[in-house]
Structures are given as C-alpha cells and as structure tokens.
C-alpha cells in the first residue's frame, strides 16, 4: 500500500509539473541556456546577474512597448545535447521571444543552427568559438562577447610592439585552446614576421600537473610563452608557474589572465608579471559609467562584476532597445533594428552591433598582473593598454569570405 501511494504521488507530481507553466502573457520573454554546474559555472552566474541588473532597471522605467522583460534559465551542465533540448523547450514550449547563452561553443553552434530554422534571435553571451559569427554566422545569431579569433589578434597587436622574438605555444588540447593559440600566432607572425616559433606543447583539458611541461619549455629557452588555457586550466597553470618560478623566468600570456575570476580564485598566491587580455575590468577604465556599474553590481550581489557580467548586461540592453526601436514584437523588425545599433553609455564606452556579422565591437584591455595596495584579496592588472575594436576585429570582408560569399 505504501508503495502504491508513493507511485501515485510521483505520478501526480509529474502531472502537475507538466501542466503548470506559469506565464504572464504580455511580456518579453528571454530564455537563457548556460552551464551552471561544473568548472564553467564560475563565469555563467555573472551573465545572468548582469542581465538581471539591466533588466530590473528597464522594467522599473516601465519596460519596453508596455511589456516587462521576463527571463528564465536552464542548466545544460556543459552537455550540448541537453543544451539543445533545453533551447528547443524554451522556444517550443515556453515560447520565448529571445534566446541567450551559453559558455559551451558546441551548444551555441547547435542552437544557432536551430534558431536559423525557427527564426528566433539568439544572443551568444558566453561562447568563444569564432565560427559562431564567422563561418557559421547568419541573420538570427548575435554575439555579445569576444571570440578566439578576436582575442588572438588583440594579443598579437600588443605582442608585436614588444621585443620578444622566440615564442612557445602551450595550452589545453581542445578546440578553444588551439583556436586561441592559432589566433595569436598567425596574427603575430603577420604583424611581425621576425618572430620564431620554437615549439608547441598541448596537455589534456583539466590537467593539474604542469611541472613536467614547464620544465621542458624552460629547457627550450623561449623569450615568451603563449598559454592557451580555459578558465579552470588558467588557475592551475598559474599555480604551477608560481611554484616552479616560471613567472620570474619567462613571461607568458593567457587570454583573461588579468580578469577577476582567475584573480579571485588565486588570491594573493597568484604570480605577478603575467600578461593577459580581457574585455572587461571593473576598475578600468575609471569612467563614471564603469564605476557606477561596478558599484551597483557590488551592492546587489555582494561581489565585483566579472567580464561575463558585462556580456549579460549588454544583452539585456540590446534586447530592450531593439524592440523599442522596432516598435513591435516582430522578430524580423527587431533584427533590423539591432543591426548596426550603437550603445553609447555602456561601462566600457561606445559599442556597436555590427550589421555584417552580428558581432559586438568591444574594446580589449591588455595588461600585466601585479599587486595593488587597494585590493587585498587578489592581483589586478597594471600597465593597462586599451586596444580598440577596429584594431583587432576581423573586417566585414574577411568574415563574409569565410562564409563563402
């Protein structure tokens, strides 16, 4: 009898879950698919929080077209098939107007293919594959973050101005790692033909013991190392670099090494003198807009905003202003409105959603990690240089060429 009751109650619960789908009718619904468990989750929460912060402000002013912006999240747990299924659920069952997400490039590419058929705009807020707005780009997919090709070129622009000539590339052996490595190297070689590549080292994703690799690299005596790791790997690598003293011997670069996610993870144990690029730093530039953004974020969530907070924030801004400018909920008009849209008052200043590839133009900051008297818990970036988007983004012609046009 007990068992029967148990079974029946499950059945009832199941039925309730299926039937209950709350929805206020007159809203703008945004569905966000992302990874909220596992190593990438450290970044994803900020996307939602940044989005929410912008959205709350917009709703407080009355929303857009008389509607409030509503959002819902789904955790794909870094599995592309789950992510795709969730995107389908959001579009077909929850009837979202806009999709956004995810840190997993494979998922982003799969969802991008899906929205092409469904004709729903998809804002990629966290995935770094350059194929998203490059080769596989189309009318319905937008990107509010940088990609590996962009990061690579920005780093190359900065490195070309430095005296190093003998390079080594090392990194996580997966698509992202290779893309960053290639991105930096190919552009650097083009800008400064005198550079030499002494060798490459690739380790498995999630590697925790870098000492053997570091010793081999040190033995080869390069001037500089390009380290192409993902977020979690960056922390591990910097720990190893500190322990083996690599940071004092040979300078190296990692994309987002100077960013606060990695910085906070390492604390004061982090090595100084590490070069990095990032699209957003809460303390630089020291503009009123950035200061206000960071202060507000800190007040709401009790922590400093990461770069992913910016991506979430501008996604909300584009969504709101897009519908506002379009004057209707029609998706095609929305897309026409967002294409070429310029945001003037973001925390990093002016940015444009390019019409040709739906990629947002963000500035990139290049700097070196160092201790600061102001922040006691983590290292910040010093010697900061701003590389404007025009210097490192691929041109429209280049992008269209990869799409075979």
């Amino acid at each position, binding site marked *: 009898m007990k*068992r029967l009751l148990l079974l029946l109650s499950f059945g009832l619960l199941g039925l309730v879950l299926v039937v209950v789908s709350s929805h206020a009718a007159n809203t703008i619904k945004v569905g966000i698919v992302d990874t909220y468990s596992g190593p990438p989750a450290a970044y994803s929460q900020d996307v939602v929080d940044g989005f929410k912060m912008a959205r709350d402000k917009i709703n407080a002013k009355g929303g857009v077209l008389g509607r409030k912006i509503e959002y819902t999240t789904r955790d794909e747990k870094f599995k592309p098939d789950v992510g795709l299924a969730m995107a389908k659920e959001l579009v077909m069952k929850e009837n979202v107007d806009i999709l956004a997400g995810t840190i997993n490039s494979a998922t982003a*590419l*799969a969802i991008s293919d899906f929205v092409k058929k469904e004709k729903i705009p998809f804002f990629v807020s966290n995935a770094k594959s350059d194929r998203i707005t490059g080769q596989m780009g189309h009318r319905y997919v937008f990107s509010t973050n940088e990609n590996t090709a962009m990061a690579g070129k920005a780093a190359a622009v900065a490195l070309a101005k430095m005296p190093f000539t003998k390079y080594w590339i090392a990194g996580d052996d*997966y*698509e992202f790692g290779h893309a960053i490595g290639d991105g930096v190297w190919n552009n650097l070689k083009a800008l400064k033909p005198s550079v030499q590549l002494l060798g490459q080292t690739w380790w498995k994703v999630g590697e925790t013991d870098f000492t053997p690799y570091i010793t081999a690299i040190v033995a080869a005596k390069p001037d500089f190392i390009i380290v192409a790791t993902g977020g979690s790997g960056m922390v591990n690598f910097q720990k190893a670099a500190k322990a083996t003293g690599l940071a004092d011997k040979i300078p190296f670069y990692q994309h987002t090494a100077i960013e606060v996610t990695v910085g906070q993870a390492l604390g004061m144990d982090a090595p100084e003198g590490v070069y990095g690029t990032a699209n957003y730093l809460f303390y630089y530039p020291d503009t009123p807009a950035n200061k206000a953004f960071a202060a507000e974020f800190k007040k709401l969530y009790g922590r400093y905003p990461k770069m992913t907070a910016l991506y979430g924030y501008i996604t909300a801004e584009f969504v709101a202003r897009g519908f506002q400018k379009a004057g209707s909920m029609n998706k095609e008009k929305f897309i026409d409105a967002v294409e070429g849209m310029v945001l003037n008052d973001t925390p990093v200043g002016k940015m444009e959603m390019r019409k040709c590839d739906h990629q947002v133009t963000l500035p990139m900051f290049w700097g070196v990690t160092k201790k600061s008297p102001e922040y006691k818990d983590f290292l910040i970036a010093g010697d900061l240089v701003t590389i404007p988007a025009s210097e490192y983004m691929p041109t429209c012609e280049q992008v269209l060429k990869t799409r075979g046009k």
Partner: protein
Amino acid sequence: MGARKSIVALVIVLAILAIAPLGLPRFYTYLIALIVTTGLLSTSLNFVLGFGGIYQFHHAVFYGAGAYGAAIMIAKLGYSGWLGFVAGPLVAAALSFIIGLICVRLSKLYFGMLQISLGSLVWAIVYRWYGFTGGDDGIHGIPMPELVGSPLGAYYFALIVGGLSLLVMHRILNSPFGSTLQGIRDNAVRSQAVGVNVRRHQLAAIVIAGFFGGVAGVLFVVVDNSVFPDMMFWTLSLEITIMALLGGWLTFLGPMLGAAVIVCLRTFVSGFTDYWTLILGILLVLVILFLPEGLLGYVLEAWKRRTSESAEG
C-alpha cells in the same frame, strides 16, 4: 503470456503516439521523439544487460558510433541521408563486434571495465580528430532528406523505426536465441554443459544490442541534426544504465519507461530549479529502497498479485 501482453501494450502505445501530434503542442512532438530515441537506446542496452546478464558498461559508444557514422556519411562525405541512416547502425554493429570480440573472454565486472577502456579509447579519438569528426565541437546542421526534415517527419520516422526496432528485439528475445541468452544469464555453467557456445552467443547478443544502439544514434541525428562527442562519453553509458534499472531491468518495456521518466524529469524540473540532478538522485534512492524491481517491475508485480488474489478469492 507476458510476451504477448508486452506486444499488445507496445502497439497500443504506438497507436496513441501516432495520432498524438494532432492534439499536442509542437514541443511534445519533439519531446516524445527524444524519449523514443533514448528509450530505444536504453532497451538495446537492456537486451544484453537485463536479458543477457552481460555487464555492458559502455553502451553509449555504439550510440555515438551510429550517430557519427550517419553524420559523417551525410555531412562530410556527402552521401544521401538514407544511405547514412543505413551506414550508422552498420558501423555500430561492426564496432560492437570488434569490442565484443576483445571483451567477451572476460566476465562480469572485468568485461565491463575493459569495455569502458576500449570505449574511452574510441571516444578520445573522436574527441581529438577535429578534422574528421568535428572534435569537441561536434557536427551541426546535418542536412536531412525532405521526408524526415521537418519536426513532424522526424517524429514519425522515430516512431516507425523505434517501434519496428522494439518489435524485432522483442521477437529475438522470445525466440530460441533469446531463451538461450536468458539461460546463460541465469546459469552460464549449466548452459555450457548442455552444449551452448556461451561466448559466441554472448557476442551475437552484443552485436545485436550494438546495432540497435546505432539505430538510436541515427534517430538522434534525425531529431536533432547534430552529433556531439558527449554521446560516446562514459557518463552517458551510466545514465542509460540508470534508466534501465529505474524502469525495471527484468522487463522488456521497463527501460523505455525509465528513459521517459528521466527525460521528462530533466525537461520539466529544470524549469523550476537548477538542482534537478539532486531531485533525480533522491528519486533514485527512493526507488531503490522501496521499488527494487524498478517502476515497471513493481507495477507488474502488483498487477500479478492482484489478479492471482482475485483468482483465489
């Protein structure tokens, strides 16, 4: 008696599902197709696990092999969709023959662990071979033949192919081959003594299971138009096993039910909370403690008890 009941139940369910799209919102068409795919996969695993007593710990490799076989044929080599759909399960069957041949000498846990090692090897190759298999990005936007390109077309394709596969597997299990297989599960030594070539029988069963796992892989490609290396990862193998155990691994349709429960749980609970794995874990604990034969197993047992009681009364 039980065999016929399963078939009748299956046919009724299929009939209902065939007319379902007329009434249900679009999303459920996709969801049911996904459940049929996953259920077929889980049933193919149970073919050897529950009915053969073979510790098939890395069944997902065959799923992935079928999917990648079809995907590469269509997207990379440019063959027609239908050819790809046939190639997939054949690749899976070939792979299961090779892996089965290597592993079948061992028994129980060791068989399972060796299969995990071999399967992980295959996964690693697919994961790394960016040029051919798309590496960790996978392959997306695989073009489908017109008939199955639309969501409705994919739905009916999954239903027909899935239903047929289940019928075929059911027939095999109720044939002399199937009886021998279950005999081996119950007592391998005795079967051997009676003259059964245990190893050959098991290998055949593994190939059949692998073949249908590959069919499930093809269904995934039809429904979702993409493949990911995750499809071959050992965590998926674990999940499929959980589905079979949850639904009832000693019944034929149990794994299907288990797959339905887990896919639905994942889809609907994640709308309310991010902690759906926690809920799944708790659900599993409850099922293990109170319903050891799995969900379907319990229902059948209860039914049997009721009918025998009423017969006596």
